[in-house]
């Protein structure tokens, strides 16, 4: 089988048969990293959450309005929002992820210049909004118009790609629990994004994680905010339904 050869060539360890029980990447981290995530005073992701809290109340753009001018107290208005995204965007008649949604509020509702997806401010706002769902179960949006997006995401997840010719599922379904060089392969649940990743020495969104995995198999990444990544995200969130949101998560 060609696939097995490829898998051995990149040094995958023996996959644990992890079918059935779903497990957050948190569970397979060492005790030090789990302690770092659990202690608010030591979790570097909290620096972004705190920045996001300040941005939430800062008036911006032609409208000179802050997020709070329209949404009030985030603890009320944003509780559970991140746990439900991606959602259906009526204005654009398509699916939209949380970062995209915040970007739209900024340009359309605040009349401010667009922020780059990986800009510190947008990541901080997304981290702050996601924080309001900390510990809540992932609960995908039931809007039936999202079904096609999830289907597309599932198909992408199972499609082999890149020079290594591996699908996301080859690692995250079939080889989860095995070793890839120094890393233990997680099941790939998007429970904690944006997340503080030690390797990044900073906070980044789920699409940045996708870029890493796609370049890992030497595939051309689809690009942050692309319809492909939003589809993968929508599928992965439904695959992780019920697992608690970790905000902010820490990963190696």
């Amino acid at each position, binding site marked *: 089988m060609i696939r097995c050869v490829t898998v051995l060539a990149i040094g995958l360890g023996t996959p644990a048969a992890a079918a059935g029980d779903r497990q957050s990447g948190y569970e397979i981290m060492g005790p030090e990293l789990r302690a770092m995530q659990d202690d608010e*005073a030591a979790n*570097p992701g909290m620096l972004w959450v*705190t920045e996001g809290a300040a941005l939430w109340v800062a008036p911006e753009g032609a409208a000179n309005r802050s997020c709070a001018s329209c949404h009030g107290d985030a603890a009320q208005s944003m509780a559970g929002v991140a746990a439900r995204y991606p959602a259906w965007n009526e204005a654009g008649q398509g699916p939209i992820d949380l970062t995209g949604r915040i970007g739209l509020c900024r340009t359309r509702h605040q009349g401010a210049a667009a922020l780059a997806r990986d800009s510190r401010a947008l990541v901080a706002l997304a981290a702050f909004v996601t924080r309001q769902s900390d510990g809540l179960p992932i609960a995908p949006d039931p809007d039936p118009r999202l079904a096609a997006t999830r289907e597309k995401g599932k198909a992408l997840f199972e499609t082999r790609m890149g020079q290594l010719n591996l699908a996301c599922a080859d690692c995250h379904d079939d080889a989860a629990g095995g070793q890839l060089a120094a890393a233990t392969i997680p099941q790939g649940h998007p429970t904690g994004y944006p997340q503080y990743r030690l390797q990044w020495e900073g906070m980044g969104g789920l699409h940045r994680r996708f870029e890493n995995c796609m370049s890992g198999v030497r595939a051309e990444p689809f690009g942050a905010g692309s319809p492909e990544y939003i589809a993968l995200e929508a599928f992965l969130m439904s695959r992780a339904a019920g697992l608690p949101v970790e905000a902010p998560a820490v990963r190696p």
Partner: protein
Amino acid sequence: MVAMVNIPETVTAGTVVEVKILISHPMETGFRTGPDGTLVPRNIIPEFRCLYGGEEVFRAEIFPAVAANPFLSFFLRAEQTAEVELLWTDEAGQEHSEARLLTVQ
């Protein structure tokens, strides 16, 4: 945002208090190349100090091996109601300080 400081506000005399601080800083090692291929100049926080009631009670030397956004924690014995000051300067010349009143009952 520069740092998150965590110190108890009110304690009884003689209590050993843990001071925790998370500093937002890139801790550039000077060995990394930027997008244009040239070396990013080194910029770390070489020294961190803590004063309690104006007196130095803790000092740390920090080296380039320390990752971005460093977290420091240390202990001091609460003896009088006084300001706990945390001071650091990075190699780009940015000076920072954070102060918290520690009340001793």
